[in-house]
Every structure is written in C-alpha cells, then in structure tokens.
C-alpha cells in the first residue's frame, strides 16, 4: 500500500492495488467514528474518508480547486450533526486546531458528544445557526467556515455566519442541497440563484456538483 499526500494537511490518497482511497491521519488512533475502515502503514493509522458519506470528501474527489484548511486552524462548522465529516476536519487541523460545531438537532448532537469525549479539538454547540446571538459569545473569529445544512434559507444562514465570524481574506465552503431550497425548481436554477446571492457579498472561487456521490448538491467555495 502506498500513500500520496494531497495539498491538505494529514490527507492522502491510499493506493491499495488498483484501488485509490481517500484517507486522513487518525488523530485518535483506534477510534472509528462511523464504521469507516482503518489502515495501518508504518505504524501510523489512517481513516478512510468516504465520499458517499461526506460531502467534503465528495468535493475532493470531484477535484474542487482548493480545500483551505491548515493545521492549527479555527473552524466554524455549521450543521456538524454526528460528526462524520467533522472528524476528518479534526484529523486535518490536528491537536492545535479547534472546530466549533453547531447543530440544531439534539438527536444528532448527542451522537457528536461521544466523538468529543476522545476528540478534544471539537466544541459541540446545540444551537440554531440562524440565531448567531446564541453562540456569538463563545465562537471567536475563525479561519474557515464550513456549512452543510438542509434548510430553505441555508444560503442566508451561510452569509450571516460568514459575515460575522470569518476573518477577512479567508475562505468559506457551503454544500447546497437544491431540494431543500425548493423541491419543485430545477436544481440548476436553484444553484444559479444561490450563486448570485453569494456573489453579492463574496468572491466565488470554485463550484463543483457532487454527482455521483450526492444527487442535486453543489459545493461552493468562497473567499471573503
């Protein structure tokens, strides 16, 4: 098995015979977060990052131009849910980094708490991402904002949070689900309208549709 590093810290392509698998170096060796495969190479453990389970992984497979994460980064993760994707972001930014994870649903945040017991760089916050006041005294200015929220006003939520929390010149990423915004409209139309709204405030750096990993989803990378 061979490892080829990506432009993202602690992230690699693992070559197992003919198979090419995306992995991150496990911050908590021995811990599995969602049933992903673990690989041990030269005494170091890596976790499989599955594009069908994580939209950020899907964006990497679809060759998004940049994943602006560095070790030690402060990240605001809106829609962290059970921590499937967040656990990989946690691997990437390492012990020095910190993820402030916001989700509105008690049921999935409850699952995240178990991940947080061993991963000390994730701060779980049960709150509505649309109500910034509920967590603005806890979350500082961050280096990266990532959002994966299925709600009709998801774009507005993203704009609000990026304006308030993201440092100037830094990047944000939003996974947009067309069906959540309007189930009757053509996804391409929904995405075009979303892009227009985002372009009013930020620079659009890249956008990628996530098929075949997710249907009717697009990942948009912006710069403040």
């Amino acid at each position: 098995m061979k490892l080829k590093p990506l432009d993202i810290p602690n992230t690699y392509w693992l070559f197992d015979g003919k198979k090419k698998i995306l992995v991150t170096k496990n911050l908590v060796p021995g811990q599995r977060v969602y049933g992903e495969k673990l690989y041990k190479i030269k005494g170091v453990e890596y976790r499989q990052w599955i594009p069908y389970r994580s939209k950020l992984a899907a964006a990497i497979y679809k060759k998004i131009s940049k994943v602006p994460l560095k070790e030690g980064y402060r990240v605001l993760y809106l829609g962290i849910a059970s921590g499937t994707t967040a656990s990989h972001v946690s691997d990437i930014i390492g012990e020095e980094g910190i993820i402030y994870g916001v989700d509105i649903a008690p049921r999935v945040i409850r699952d995240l708490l178990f991940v947080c017991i061993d991963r000390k760089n994730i701060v779980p916050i049960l709150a509505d991402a649309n109500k910034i006041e509920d967590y603005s005294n806890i979350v500082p200015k961050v280096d990266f904002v990532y959002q994966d929220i299925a709600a009709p006003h998801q774009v507005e939520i993203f704009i609000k949070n990026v304006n308030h929390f993201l440092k100037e010149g830094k990047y944000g990423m939003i996974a947009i689900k067309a069906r959540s915004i309007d189930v009757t409209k053509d996804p391409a139309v929904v995405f075009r309208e979303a892009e227009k709204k985002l372009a009013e405030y930020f620079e659009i750096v890249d956008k990628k549709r996530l098929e075949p990993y997710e249907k009717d989803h697009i990942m948009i990378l912006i710069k403040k």
Partner: protein
Amino acid sequence: MTVVYLSPRGVVVCEDDKVLEVRKITDDPAEAAKKWESGESRKIAEELAGKYNASIYDGPAPLEILIKSGLFKDEEEYKEFIQKFGFEMTKIRIKKSYTPDKMIIQAAMFIEDLNEIINRIYERLCEWYGIYFPEFVEEVDNMKKFFEIVSEAKDRKEAAKLAGIKDREIGYDFGEEDIEVVREIAKIGKNLLELKQRVTEYIRKLMSENYPNLTAIAGPIIGAKLLTLAGGIENLATLPASTIQVLGAEKALFRHLTKGTKPPKHGVLFQHPMVNTLPKSLRGRMARTLAAKIAIAAKVDYFSKGKEKIYEKLKKELDERYKELKEEVRGGKK
C-alpha cells in the same frame, strides 16, 4: 472606551488596554455551563456594565484580554476549558429540549413495527399449524382467538374443543416436540398482542395528559400519528391546516407537486370516523374542516403547554360541519 467582556469563565472590564476589574465565575466547566445557561453569567456582566457605565462586547472575549486578566494561563488552558464547557452546555441544552411528544412518537412508531411483526408471525403460524390442523386455520379467522387457543391447547383434540369445531383429521400428526414449538410461538403472538394494547394505552395516556385539545379533536391515535408525521408538537403547531390535511399522503402529494396529478384529499385524517363515514365526494370538505380545527388545537396545546382546554368550542363547530355534510347526503346527492 470601557468595555465589558463576557466569557464562561468570568467577566473582565477593560478600558482600552488596562484591566479595570475581573470577576471570576468559576473554574469548573460544568458549573460554568450551568451559570451560562441560567443567565447568571450574563447578569454579572450586566451588573458590571452598569457599574462602569460600559457596554458588553458582542462577541467572545479576546484571548489576550482573558490571559492578561488572569482568568486563563495560556491558549492551551483556554481551548481545554472551552471544549469541556461546550460539552457541558450542550448536555444541558439536550435535556432542555426534551418534550413528551418524543416518547409518543417512539411509541407510535413501535405500534407500526408491532403490526408488521405480529402479522408476519400470524401468517407463518397459519401455514405451520395448518400442516397439523388445517380445519382450525380454515375456521378460526380471529388473530387473538387463534393465538390464545394454539398456545393453550396441548393437542388437536383440545384445540378443536376450545374452538368449537370438528376435527376431520385432514392434517399430519405432530409429535410432542412439534406441538411444543408451535405453542411457544403462539404464546409470543399472544404476548405481542397484549403488548400492543399496553403501548396503545400508554399513548392514549400521554396524549390526553399533554395534548388535551389535539386528543379531543383528532383522537389519541390519529393525534399521535400526526405528531409522528409532523415531527413533534412544535412542528405540528406551526404547520398550515392545508398541510395537516394531507399528512400521511406524501407520495400522492409530491406526485401532484412535481408531475401535476390530482392532489390528495386527505392523509391519515382519512382514518377519522368523521371523514371515512361520509361518501367520497364529501370527504375532502370534511378533511379540510377537520384539519383546520386540528391546527388550532395543536397550537393551543403547544403554546399553553397543555394547560388551556378549548376543545369544547372546536368540537361543537366540527360536529355542526359534519351534520351539515351529512344533510347533503340525505338531500339527494348523486
């Protein structure tokens, strides 16, 4: 400019670069979370803001100030504290988010599960027992009776006696062990039917205790199904009546929205006696009225936390509407 910085660990009052006062709240993350969620921490900040005639900073206290004030030794300590604080605060919020509808929904979904399970067992047992005593399977079509007798009777003769039917000896003779296994399974079926009764009673009790208006108008079982489909009382109280009318008919609804076929007239509301006892042409109108009353009932239940009871008035209006429509039937509708 004097500014008050609020952090879960403590409050710091600053004038430009100088630290004027530090009020430590606590070192313990769990205690910090408690005081934060109760609003106590914010009150301390407001008190100090009043004292120094300053404003509270609308953001997290900057790390440099927190360290200068002595509340934290370094960034490492801060990160460790904040992570534990977030954990404890989220624990408190999770507990706060508990509402009785969560249990009602689990119980209602379990009833659906039970129905599937009981039916599978019944069908299997019919086939299995039919090898031994097909006359019995042919004659006894009541599930409860079936389970009761099969679990009770030690052989075909006794089963025939208990069921009051004739044993024509068409079936194959089972051995003792064969009968034992089948009896065990029938016993489970009987127990599951009792369990279904028990859980249904549980739902009725929770519904009438917590959501009296919804229970009075829709009934405890349909009410519970509506709660399940809506995803909770808050959601149900927020839904427009037109959505409540078609809850449960999602397949037909989305087919109508995306393909333009005829819209559904009712979802689970079809199960309501006032709807399904009317002829097809009038059901839609009854479902609409019923949904409107349910919407009001749900709102009162949610916002008054089950304390206000207005179902008398709603029931009266509902009964009137039903009478009105029933009259149309008599008045020679085609």
